[in-house]
């Protein structure tokens, strides 16, 4: 089954990104395809490569980047939400790409399911 994911909150402040990450890992393990992960609202902060949590904490930016690249997942950061919040190409982690809101709507159309994680 093709599953799309929408993440509306940044890393750390809300559990949304953690929950979405674990859901995504479990979905891949069960053989599902992740059609796209779309980062909207504060979710765009998940792509900030300058993020440097304490060494005993999880690094969500790296986790998403690695998961995306290893499994060829399309990680899309909303350009409008990102500009407002200062998430620009120069600080976007590899594996993420910046694009428009149409990519979210398209994920809703093309995927069999869309699951929303937020606050």
């Amino acid at each position, binding site marked *: 089954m093709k599953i799309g994911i929408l993440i509306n909150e940044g890393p750390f402040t809300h559990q949304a990104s953690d929950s979405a990450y674990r859901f995504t890992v479990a979905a891949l393990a069960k053989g599902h395809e992740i059609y796209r992960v779309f980062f909207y609202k504060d979710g765009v902060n998940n792509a900030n490569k300058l993020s440097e949590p304490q060494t005993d904490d999880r690094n969500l930016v790296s986790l998403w980047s690695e998961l995306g690249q290893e499994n060829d997942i399309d990680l899309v950061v909303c350009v409008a939400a990102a500009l407002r919040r200062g998430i620009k190409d120069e600080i976007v982690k590899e594996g993420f790409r910046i694009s428009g*809101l149409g990519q*979210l*709507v398209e994920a*809703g159309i093309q995927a069999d399911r869309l699951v929303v994680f937020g606050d």
Partner: protein
Amino acid sequence: MEEFEEPGPEIVKRFMYVNRRAPYGTIYAHECLEVILVAAAFDQDVSVVFVDDGVYELKKGQDTTDIGLKNFSKTYGALDDYDVEKIYVEKESLEARGLTADDLVIPVEVLAAKELGEIMAKQDIVLGS
């Protein structure tokens, strides 16, 4: 409506946008509206719902001059231009806030929770705020 359940080559899905937040205190209402306006350009079956504090997004007379945020309440009027015509407001949410449809910036269909719940249950994609 069975043909919508198994989308064919030209997929048409039922998208519902559920607004449950007051405006200005958070950006959720505003950024949800941005999605709706983009979504309207796709040929899908779009409906927009206002429940809980989401009904406050439509309150007439908003004037944000003194808080410095953009007043986006007038943008809801553009939904009609974008052919978004299914706009539902929950009756119970209005009543709890002492409001009626006359207090809102656009014409809406006011539905009791029971009827609204039935419509929600038929959607393919529900995006909440």
